[in-house]
């Protein structure tokens, strides 16, 4: 992999040390959170080119456009769909289904969060569900904290289940050539169990707070969920496109299509349906709105990271790290997989899991020959996915969705504090990793 010979680095410095320096500095500044992470990643990626580690062509070849396309496509689909009011509808509908009983709401809200997070990205899911949950808690005069806590935990558990559920999975699937169905068959089976095990302590700890009077419950029962749907036509169009996209994901490996193609095509189709026959002015406004809802900051963060990671890959650092890790685990697949699981979990709880996974992907790839080839190392990808996604539950900064919920809660006057969250969430996260450990061991390694 390392093409050190062709490099013309700045002042003729050793490319390995130079690239490592840039990479470590980039990582450190991202962790410090002193500068917006997208700026840091773009500067880090840029430095790799300016210092001669990468040419611009090489840098661009390091960007995983499949990951970016899949994210953008799904973001556009959600941006259009949410205008229909369907997410409010579902939240109110389930609250009424359980007769507005607080414990029932905990259960159903957890289920809905997990399912939505599996099919959409976690940040979007919690952005849509948290405000409605706050409203319901306010009307029931119950503490919103346990519910927001459950939304955070379940969004990360649900996101673990599918290829499109969480950015680490998108990156892993894209880089390792694992399909939507591969994720469904290998990760989805274990997530319901993890979800249930996470819910029990949440219920136990806060069960005394989960009581609402009949009058307060009657207020929620008076909600008319059908009124929450603001645009039936758009809802139907969105459901049609969404089911086609999910079908497309399930068939993508058979049809030899990349997930990004499916998602982007779905986004374009939904925009077409929404705008067909409208006047050009309105079309322009709607398309502008849908595309501006794409989280460009996150995407540019990805772009910068991909380049920076490609830089250390080209300079030979990834190979050296892979070699080191293999020496530690003595080339044993079981030890390697379980180390990756626990290591990713703790790392993802402390730092953003996106840069961590971006670094781990080439590292795992370069360990493949020593461990018996691409097929043999598949358990390592599942270990990385489980560790990185579930690890996000460990702290309030472990995943973007956690911070989004905390931000909304803070605005609503019910703040979620770092230490208070950590005290319950970190042990829960370790528990979920222990379950994943047993699952990985029994299914792939025993």
């Amino acid at each position: 992999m390392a093409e050190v010979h062709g490099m013309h680095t700045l002042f003729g410095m050793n490319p390995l040390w130079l690239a490592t320096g840039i990479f470590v500095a980039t990582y450190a500044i991202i962790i410090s959170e002193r500068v917006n992470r997208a700026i840091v990643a773009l500067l880090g990626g840029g430095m790799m080119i300016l210092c001669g580690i990468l040419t611009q062509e090489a840098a661009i070849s390091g960007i995983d456009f499949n990951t970016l396309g899949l994210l953008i496509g799904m973001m556009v689909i959600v941006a259009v769909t949410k205008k229909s009011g369907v997410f409010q509808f579902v939240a109110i509908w389930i609250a009424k289904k359980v007769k507005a009983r607080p414990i029932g709401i905990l259960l159903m809200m957890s289920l809905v969060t997990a399912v939505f997070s599996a099919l959409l990205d976690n940040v979007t899911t919690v952005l849509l569900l948290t405000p409605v949950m706050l409203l319901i808690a306010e009307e029931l005069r119950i503490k919103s904290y346990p519910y927001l806590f459950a939304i955070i935990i379940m969004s990360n558990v649900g996101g673990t289940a599918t290829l499109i559920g969480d950015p680490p999975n998108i990156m892993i699937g894209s880089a390792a050539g694992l399909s939507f169905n591969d994720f469904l068959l290998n990760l989805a089976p274990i997530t319901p169990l993890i979800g249930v095990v996470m819910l029990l302590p949440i219920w136990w700890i806060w069960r005394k707070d989960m009581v609402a009077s009949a009058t307060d419950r009657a207020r929620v029962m008076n909600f008319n969920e059908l009124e929450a749907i603001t645009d039936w036509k758009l809802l139907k169009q969105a459901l049609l496109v969404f089911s086609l996209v999910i079908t497309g994901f399930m068939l993508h490996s058979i049809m030899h299509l990349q997930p990004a193609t499916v998602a982007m095509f779905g986004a374009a189709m939904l925009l077409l349906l929404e705008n067909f026959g409208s006047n050009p002015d309105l079309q322009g406004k709607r398309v502008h709105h849908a595309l501006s809802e794409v989280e460009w900051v996150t995407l540019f963060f990805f772009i910068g990271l991909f380049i920076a990671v490609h830089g250390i890959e080209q300079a030979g650092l990834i190979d050296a790290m892979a070699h080191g890790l293999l020496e530690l685990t003595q080339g044993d697949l079981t030890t390697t997989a379980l180390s990756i699981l626990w290591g990713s979990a703790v790392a993802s709880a402390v730092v953003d899991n996106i840069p961590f996974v971006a670094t781990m992907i080439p590292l795992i790839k370069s360990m493949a020959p020593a461990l018996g080839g691409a097929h043999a190392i598949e358990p390592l990808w599942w270990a990385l996915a489980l560790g990185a996604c579930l690890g996000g539950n460990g702290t309030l900064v472990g995943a973007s969705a956690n911070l989004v919920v905390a931000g909304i809660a803070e605005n609503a006057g019910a703040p979620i504090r770092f230490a208070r969250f950590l005290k319950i969430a970190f042990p829960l996260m370790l528990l979920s990793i222990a379950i994943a450990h047993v699952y990985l061991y029994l299914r792939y390694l025993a």
Partner: protein
Amino acid sequence: MTISKVINTSYPTLKDSDLISDATRLLLEHKHSALPVVDEHGRYLGIFSTHRMFSLLLPRAVLIEGGVSDLAFVSGPMKMLVDKMLEHGGRRIDEVLVTDTPVVHPDTPLLEAVLLLYRNGNDIPVVDREDGRYLGMIAGTELLAHVYEESRTHG
């Protein structure tokens, strides 16, 4: 042309220790959309308004950024509103004071006041530039009436 001609000094003022229920009654008796709150030295502290009152009556989940975007699905909300009114009635004004609305000074140009009224919606307090003393209010209706009268005489 400044705002000095359209300053209204007849608005009742509120004290920071007044209760929300009393302030609301005063607001309604005088049929204003906003009343100024002043301290014991007559210095301007902030505004209490119908707009602020509505924000107290609404669930917090709709007021926050990115919150619930409409409430069409909530039926029969009168009891909810009454409950909220009673719940907040006993709180002091200084707990809910709005301090970030614009203020004008006696020498503020008239056009600037029109712009602020357009942006703010509510009546705007006039405050002494030097010592922050409350001097009066600019009422949207009165300013509009002033311009209307001018247009009749000059038009």
